[in-house]
C-alpha cells in the first residue's frame, strides 16, 4: 500500500509550531563517536499530533530531549514557538514515562508547582488547579501523595501538571509505556480529548505501532542508528479510530513492516556487540 493522503501539514495555515532542521546529535565515548541522530528535518504544524515511532536505540527519545532542551543537538537547529530552543522551558511541557512527579508534594501541589514558578496570584493558581483536577478526575486525590496513586493516576497528575503550564506544545516520552493495556487505552482516549479541547501540539514518542496509529495525525518512523527519518506516514482515519477497521489494520501492517526492518538491524547490532564481549 502506498503511504497516502495529501500532505496533512498543509491543513495548518500558521507557521509550524516546531521546526526541526538538519538536526544531528553525536555522543563521544573515548575515541569512538556514536551518531545518535542524523539530518533530521521535520515540521510540525500548530495543533498537530505527531508520533515518533521506532525500535529502542533509534534516538527517538534523544530527539524529544533535544526539542525539550535537555540535551541540545550537535548540528542543525530546532525552533519551537518561533524561538530557537536553547534550554528547557515551560513553553514545552514534558510528560515522562517515569511520571517524574515530586513525591514530597501532594497531587494538588504537583499541579500547582509550575504556576507558582510563574508567580501567578494565589487565587488564580487555586482556580486553575481545581479546574484541572476536576477535568482529569483527580479531585478526590488532591491531597494524596504520589506514592499512594496507581500508575494511571500518576500519569494523569503529570498530564495535569503540564496542562497547567498552558504551553502550546506538549512533549510525551513513552508516557503510557509502563501502564497496563486497559489503563493505557483509557488514557489514550483522555489524551485525545485533551488534545482537541486544549488545542495542543503533541510530540509523542512510542514504540507501540498500534498506539501511534490510534493517536497520531502523522507517524514519523525512525531508522535505527543513526536515527533519521525513515518515513512520515499520515493517518487519514477520523477519530474515534477503530483498531479493527480494515484501514487501521492495513496501516498497522505497513508500519509493522517498516519498523521490523529497523528492529532487525537493532537485533543484529545487539548480537554483534554481545559476541564481542
Amino acid at each position, binding site marked *: 500500500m502506498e503511504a497516502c493522503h495529501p500532505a496533512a501539514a498543509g491543513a495548518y495555515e500558521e507557521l509550524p509550531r516546531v521546526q526541526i532542521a538538519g538536526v544531528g546529535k553525536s555522543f563521544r565515548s573515548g575515541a569512538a563517536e556514536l551518531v545518535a541522530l542524523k539530518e533530521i528535518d521535520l515540521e510540525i504544524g500548530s495543533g498537530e499530533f505527531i508520533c515518533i515511532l521506532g525500535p529502542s536505540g533509534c534516538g527517538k527519545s534523544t530527539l524529544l530531549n533535544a526539542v525539550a532542551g535537555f540535551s541540545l543537538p550537535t548540528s542543525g537547529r530546532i525552533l519551537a514557538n518561533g524561538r530557537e530552543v536553547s534550554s*528547557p522551558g515551560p513553553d514545552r511541557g514534558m510528560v515522562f514515562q517515569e511520571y517524574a512527579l515530586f513525591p514530597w508534594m501532594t497531587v494538588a501541589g504537583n499541579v500547582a508547582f509550575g504556576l507558582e514558578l510563574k508567580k501567578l496570584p494565589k487565587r488564580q493558581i487555586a482556580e486553575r488547579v481545581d479546574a484541572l483536577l476536576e477535568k482529569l478526575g483527580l479531585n478526590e486525590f488532591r491531597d494524596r501523595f504520589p506514592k499512594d496513586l496507581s500508575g494511571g493516576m500518576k500519569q494523569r497528575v503529570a498530564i495535569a501538571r503540564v496542562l497547567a503550564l498552558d504551553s502550546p506544545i506538549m512533549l510525551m516520552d513513552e508516557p503510557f509505556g509502563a501502564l497496563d493495556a486497559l489503563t493505557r487505552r483509557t488514557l489514550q482516549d483522555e489524551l485525545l480529548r485533551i488534545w482537541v479541547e486544549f488545542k495542543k501540539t503533541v510530540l509523542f514518542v512510542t514504540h507501540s505501532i498500534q498506539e501511534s496509529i490510534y493517536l497520531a495525525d502523522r507517524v514519523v518512523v525512525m531508522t535505527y542508528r543513526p536515527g533519521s527519518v525513515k518515513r512520515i506516514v499520515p493517518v487519514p482515519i477520523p477519530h474515534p479510530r477503530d483498531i479493527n477497521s480494515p484501514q487501521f489494520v492495513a496501516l498497522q501492517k505497513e508500519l509493522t513492516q517498516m519498523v521490523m526492518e529497523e528492529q532487525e538491524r537493532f537485533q543484529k547490532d545487539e548480537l554483534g556487540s554481545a559476541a564481542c564481549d
Partner: protein
Amino acid sequence: MAKQLLHATVLPFGLLLIWELLTRSRLINPQILPAPSQVVLRWIDYAKPLAPYREAHLGPVAWLFSGELPLDLFATSYRVVVGFLIGAGLALPLGLLMGASDAVYKLCNSLVQILRPIPPIAYIPLAILWFGLGNPPAFFLIALGVFFPVLMNTISGVRHVDSIYLRAARNLGAGGATLFLRVILPAALPQILTGLRVGIGVGFICVIVAEMIAVNSGLGFRILEAREFFWSDKIIAGMLTIGLLGLGIDTAMNRLNNHLLRWHRGLESK
C-alpha cells in the same frame, strides 16, 4: 496479643529470675553482679529527692526533680542538645554547599577526608587543652561526633538527587534558588535525616565519654563515680538510665522522621 506479649517477655523475665536466684544464693558475689531487685531499689534511691519536702523548695515539681538522677538526666540531655545543634548547625550548611557546588566540594573534600576517620574520642586531650574542664569540651566533642555523619549524608543526599526530578523541575521552569529549595532539598531530605539520626547517636556516645573525663555531673560521670565506691548496683542503674535516654532520643528522631517523610515510598503511615 497476649500470646505475643508472653513470647516477647518470657526470655528477659526468665533471665532476670535466674540472675536474682544466683545472686541471692550467693553463687555470684553481689558486689560484682548485684541482684535485679537490688538494682531497682538503688535506682529508686538514685531518682528520688535528696531531702524531704520543705517549704524552702521552689514548689512540689522542683522538689520532685531535685534528686540526683533527674539532674544528671537533665545535664546529659542538655549537653547532647547543645552539641547536636552546634555540630548539625555547622555540618548542614557546609554539606549543602559542598553537595551543590563542585568548586566548594573540591576545595573542602580532601580536608574532610583526612579529618573524618579520626574518632571524636581521640580529640579528648586537645578538647581539654583548648577548653579546659566543664561543658565546653563536652560540647566540642559532641559537636564533632555529630558533624561528620551529618556532613557526609547531606553531601551525598544533594549530589545524588534523581536526575528525573531535576529534569521535570527545569521543564516546569524552575532554576537557581527555587530549584535548590523546592526540589533538591526535599529530594535530599531522607538522607539528610539519616545523617541527623546517625549523628545524634554518635553525639550520645560522645557525651557519656566526655562526662567520664571532663565534667563532674551527668550520667557518664555518675557511673564512673559509682565505680570508685564499688556501687555496682548504681552503675547498672546508671547504665539503664543511659539506655532509656538513648531510646527516648531515637524514638523522638524516628517520630520526626516519619512526620517529615510521610510522602516517602518506604514509609507506611501508621
